[in-house]
């Protein structure tokens, strides 16, 4: 995943613009005919567009070329790149494919296998206790009557309940792969194993060796084992499920790139389990990470630094002198930057106002275009379906028919709000067909494009669900404490999580007598005499 060292000699940012530029160049050279076709689609209707191509694949790159004039200055290495250089997206895609195919799932399969074996052992033990005397010394067994039969029935039903309960609690598809073992589960498994082993030990020593004839006692022994197993299962429910339900900590999750923040209330969990809960909520609560929105602040930061250059006039000195010189240089730079009359705040204000205006204009055009497009189709009634079978379209064809009239406005809007890489033409047409099928209004159709939704709303390649790394100073199996900080790192960004304990609330009581609500008028009357 370390693109800087492995794949290129150029820095992250230049790699992105360079790589995508190269990518565009490559695709443009190889698919000249296709690019001509998609450029034609801007003006006329082309229904058979290639699927899953980014909506503005080539146009955006050309536009970047036009706008990003000084990319030559910002790249740090111009030589050493070949036609086979990869962009950031390619690397991500390759590593994702690797992850999907290679069995990091062997850990999961091991877990499943172990738990199945343990479950079988646990379930078959009482049955074994009951059956073995009949097999080994059937002649010496005393016949036991209705009491035994009652106990048989209770063993059967308790085993059935245990089976269902174990299936319900433990045999669910795992929601996450944790870096360390799940401490409570491991403890419980060990406990169950020890318990069953001790029962077997006792059984082996006291019953098998001595070949006890009291069958009722043996049946009661088996019943006590099943009861104890049910109680261990109760313990498992309390430890694994119930303990963390009561909220105890409030976690503040901040995304490092754009500062989006959410708060979650969690119970007493270990750090890795808390991380899983946070990530599950991340996919639904945080707006999708859009790196295109961050370029403006980066260019401003670059301009701040690029304004001043420091020259060392006195020549190289000793080690201490060099450190002192570096310190004084940086201080001089800061002082000079503070003194310089910086008008970048002015630029920012006007730039943002202009952008806002442009977005609003494009949005207005888009809304009008979509509303007009939706008026072109109408749902056919049942009676009409029988009468006129000609020129009837299913939702997908209807979507394809009205899409070209709104495509241009939508393209422009997405480009202005820098969302064009999140939506492909195919996904937009699918969404349109979906909206038409479910009788949605144009406003409902547009909602997913006008506002940035949570990450789950977009395609699976945006999810990067297998790329998360938990970075923590404390051990990840230790519990959350007040002031715990840990990081969840994805490829381009990270989530910073801080923990705070929910305060202990002390409630006092005050009783108000319902008869004590009395009022008087505030008068100021004037009387003439």
């Amino acid at each position, binding site marked *: 995943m370390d693109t800087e060292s492995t794949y290129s000699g150029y820095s992250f940012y230049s790699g992105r613009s360079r790589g995508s530029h190269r990518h565009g160049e490559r695709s443009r050279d190889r698919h000249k005919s296709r690019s001509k076709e998609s450029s034609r689609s801007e003006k006329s209707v082309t229904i058979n567009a290639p699927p899953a191509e980014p909506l503005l694949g080539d146009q955006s790159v050309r536009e970047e070329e036009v706008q990003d004039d000084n990319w030559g200055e910002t790249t740090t290495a111009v030589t050493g790149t070949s036609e086979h250089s990869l962009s950031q997206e390619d690397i991500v895609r390759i590593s994702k494919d690797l992850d999907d195919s290679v069995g990091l799932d062997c850990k999961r399969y091991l877990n499943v296998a172990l738990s199945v074996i343990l479950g079988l052992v646990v379930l078959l033990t009482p049955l074994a206790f009951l059956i073995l005397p009949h097999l080994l010394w059937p002649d010496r067994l005393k016949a036991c009557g209705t009491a035994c039969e009652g106990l048989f029935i209770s063993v059967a039903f308790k085993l059935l309940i245990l089976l269902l309960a174990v299936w319900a609690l433990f045999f669910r598809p795992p929601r996450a792969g944790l870096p360390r073992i799940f401490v409570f589960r491991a403890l419980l498994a060990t406990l169950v194993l020890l318990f069953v082993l001790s029962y077997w030990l006792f059984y082996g020593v006291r019953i098998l060796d001595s070949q006890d004839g009291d069958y009722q006692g043996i049946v009661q022994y088996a019943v006590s084992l099943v009861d104890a197993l049910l109680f261990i299962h109760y313990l498992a429910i309390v430890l694994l499920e119930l303990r963390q339900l009561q909220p105890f900590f409030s976690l503040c999750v901040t995304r490092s790139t754009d500062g989006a923040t959410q708060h979650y209330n969690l119970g007493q969990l270990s750090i890795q389990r808390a991380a899983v809960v946070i990530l599950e909520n991340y996919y639904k609560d945080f707006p999708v990470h859009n790196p295109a929105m961050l370029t403006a602040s980066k260019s401003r930061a670059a301009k701040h630094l690029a304004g001043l250059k420091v020259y060392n006039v006195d020549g190289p000195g000793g080690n201490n002198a060099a450190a002192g010189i570096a310190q004084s240089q940086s201080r001089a730079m800061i002082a000079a930057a503070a003194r310089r009359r910086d008008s970048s705040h002015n630029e920012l204000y006007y730039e943002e106002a202009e952008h806002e205006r442009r977005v609003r204009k494009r949005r207005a055009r888009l809304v009008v275009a979509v509303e007009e497009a939706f008026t072109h189709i109408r749902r056919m009634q049942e009676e009409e379906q029988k009468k006129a079978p000609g020129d009837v379209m299913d939702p997908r064809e209807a979507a394809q028919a009205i899409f070209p009239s709104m495509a241009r406005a939508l393209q422009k809007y997405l480009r202005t709000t820098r969302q064009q890489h999140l939506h492909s033409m195919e996904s937009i047409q699918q969404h349109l067909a979906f909206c038409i099928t479910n009788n949605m209004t144009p406003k409902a159709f547009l909602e997913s494009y006008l506002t940035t939704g949570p990450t789950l709303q977009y395609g699976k390649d945006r999810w990067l669900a297998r790329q998360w790394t938990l970075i923590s100073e404390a051990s990840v199996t230790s519990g959350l404490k007040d002031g715990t900080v840990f990081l969840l790192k994805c490829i381009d960004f990270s989530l910073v999580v801080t923990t705070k304990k929910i305060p202990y609330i002390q409630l006092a009581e005050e009783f108000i007598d319902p008869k004590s609500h009395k009022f008087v008028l*505030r*008068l*100021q*009357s*004037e*009387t*003439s*005499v």
Partner: protein
Amino acid sequence: MSFIPGQPVTAVVQRIEIHKLRDGDNLILGFSIGGGIDQDPSQNPFSEDKTDKGIYVTRVSKGGPAEVAGLRMGDKIMQVNGWDMTMVTHDQARKKLTKKGEDVVRLLVTRKSLENAVRQSMMH
């Protein structure tokens, strides 16, 4: 016109004698009162101390008996015919002023300018 709780109220007062005017069956005095212990003292525009619940003259009709007798708007009425007006309700004050049998009411009123005038005359 200072009011110290527990101490007797001291004020410079002016005696005003109003002869009631007969208007049909009614006897009118020609002014309006406001205030009283059952009223809200903070809304009184004439009082210096906004907790003062005394009876104040809020309006004097032009040319009426009260104006002729020398009553001015903003005066605080301390006594009416010997009856105290500093600790009465609004309705009690009205009743004391509009007794049907009396033709003349003798008021003791006080205002800020009286105190200033007395102080000035004492200084000379």
